[in-house]
């Protein structure tokens, strides 16, 4: 990694859906060992930006640099190949499978020796690696063999984040990681985010909850109507400043939590309630 250059850098990235300019010449960066809070009102372009980085939508214009090199991210595999992992709000876990199976879903390890011929899964090795990863992250789950459907929302979120780390990413994008969580569970997830920072990962956290963002982020990046509307150091700013950047009007301290859908159906908002 070339020192000095940000881990991930967007320069003049734009994205348009028909007549709607979802992202308009956005410059953004995240460094290794840094947590950036990405905030903005509904429809501000947060999700579009994350999906552009994750390769779900290719950017219309602008350049993306990773480790200082210009890269093209046209599909999700490009992003994962570079080392960009995304944890979506609906988590995409299989409730009927246990923690180990979910962590290794789609990248199961096969036994060596006799097991190879029969494609037998190496459950012992996967469980061992799961245990190590989770204890490194100080994630406590009652049993690695409990079904994910029986875990609490906070535990599920932590499993989803842990799963994104299996591919040894350098940047992790978290979409609303604390939405619909209780106080204690939110604290667990925020702790986990701090541990990602300790691992020298670049972390981007989308959140509506400014309290959580201030708690964990080093930097707060505000989007408004697809345009960058502020880039604050978390230590050197106040909630009022950020709110006024989000709303574009003088600080009235009111948090906007409207529920109009974003352009790209953020339909997962309610998915948190379902099973």
């Amino acid at each position: 990694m070339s020192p000095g250059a940000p881990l991930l850098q967007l320069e003049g990235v734009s994205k348009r859906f028909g007549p709607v300019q979802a992202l308009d010449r956005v410059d953004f960066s995240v460094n290794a060992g840094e947590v950036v809070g990405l905030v903005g009102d509904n429809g501000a372009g947060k999700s579009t930006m994350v999906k552009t980085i994750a390769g779900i939508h290719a950017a219309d214009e602008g350049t993306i640099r990773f480790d200082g090199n210009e890269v093209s991210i046209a599909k999700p595999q490009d992003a994962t190949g570079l080392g960009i992992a995304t944890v979506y709000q609906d988590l995409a876990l299989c409730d009927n499978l246990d923690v180990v199976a979910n962590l290794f879903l789609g990248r199961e390890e096969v036994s060596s020796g006799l097991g190879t011929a029969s494609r037998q899964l190496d459950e012992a090795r996967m469980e061992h690696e799961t245990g190590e990863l989770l204890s490194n992250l100080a994630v406590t789950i009652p049993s690695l063999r409990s079904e994910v459907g029986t875990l609490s929302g906070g535990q599920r979120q932590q499993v989803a984040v842990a799963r994104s780390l299996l591919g040894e990413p350098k940047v992790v994008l978290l979409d609303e990681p604390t939405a619909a969580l209780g106080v204690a569970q939110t604290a667990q997830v925020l702790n986990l985010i701090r541990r990602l920072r300790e691992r020298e990962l670049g972390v981007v956290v989308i959140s509506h909850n400014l309290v959580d963002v201030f708690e964990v982020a080093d930097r707060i990046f505000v989007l408004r109507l697809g345009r960058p509307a502020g880039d604050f150091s978390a230590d050197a700013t106040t909630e009022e400043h950020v709110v006024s950047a989000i709303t574009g009007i003088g600080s009235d301290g009111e948090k906007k939590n409207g529920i109009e859908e974003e352009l790209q159906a953020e339909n997962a908002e309610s998915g948190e309630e379902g099973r």
Partner: protein
Amino acid sequence: MSEAAVSTVETSEESVPRPKETWRRLIQGDLASLRVVIGLALIWAIFQFENDRFLSAQNLTNLMLQITAIGLISVGIVYVLLLGEIDLSVGAVSGLAAAVMAVLNVKHGWNPYLAIAAAVAVGMAIGLLQGSLFSRFAVPSFVVTLAGLLAWQGALLQVLGSTGSINLTDPKITGLANTFYSDTVGWIFAAIVIGGYGAVLFLGHRRRVAAGLDSESLAGLVVRFGLVAVVTIVATTVLNSDRGVPLALLILLAFVVGMEFVVKRTGFGRHVFAVGGNAEAARRAGIRVNGIRVAVFGIAGTMAAIGGIMAASRLLAVNQNSGGNELLLLAIAGPVIAGTSLFGGRGSVWTALMGALVIGSISNGMDLLALSSAVKFMVTGGVLLLAVLVDAVARNQRSASGRV
């Protein structure tokens, strides 16, 4: 049983069994295999009480022969149920495959093994076709396979031609369901089963210990090994005291064990569970969801063909009724009764065997009591309804208590 292999580890370490907890697990399906064993014991006790020939060696051997075809078809059904789908065509496919085998062997003089292979290939091709239609066009599997049920029934009549019935005489084919092994050979098979199970338990235990993981206590392993050994020895003794261990039972057991291994211990099986649990999550994890679906329907068609061949071998004939009547519904009911969820993502191939045993025992017992088919159907229907209700209750309780 092998489901227990996964769940016992946590059970043994986290819970001191309390009656209420055990009851909850019994209802919610964690202990579904125990539930069905208790049910089976109850059924056997009732029939034995009513007619003491029920548990005779001769009748139990007959029971094993009766459940082979249904059990084999159910093995494929389990895979389909794990996806949360249904295959209504397996009965018709089993009849058609048997007819293909009979026509090729009897009318065209094909080598029996080639005829059997062709029949299995027909079943597999039908399954793959239906799976492709279902996944490509996103037509509900219920409808695709309902169309199949009608179409393959028609194909059966077409293949059989004007005769309407073909008698099987080739000893290679009739031998499938009518071969019994001598006592010595029976005991050799029993030793292989017990030794194999012991080796699997021991190696699995050693691997977990080597990886530094909690493993089940030695006592637990010994108990499980002891149970399997006792069941195997008792079964072999009983079968040997009549005609001997039937080849048909060995075929059924081999498929159950093999397909259980595939679904519980391989990546493919894990992906089947994942697609049945949350297809979108599976897709995002990079699993080719449609590929899994096509393969699973291919398995269902293949197993249906194998079941149809065994049924024909036992009947010594293929006729217009082959694969008809209640065969389809019983093959689906069996795994559900024994604990495979209709809603997808939960179950095991053992339920194909246990379900076939339950249904076969009810049918066999009522035959012994000379009850009319009217009563048989109503009782079987009642048992199925009860099982589905337990499944639904378990599911509701899981979703009510699952998320804290």
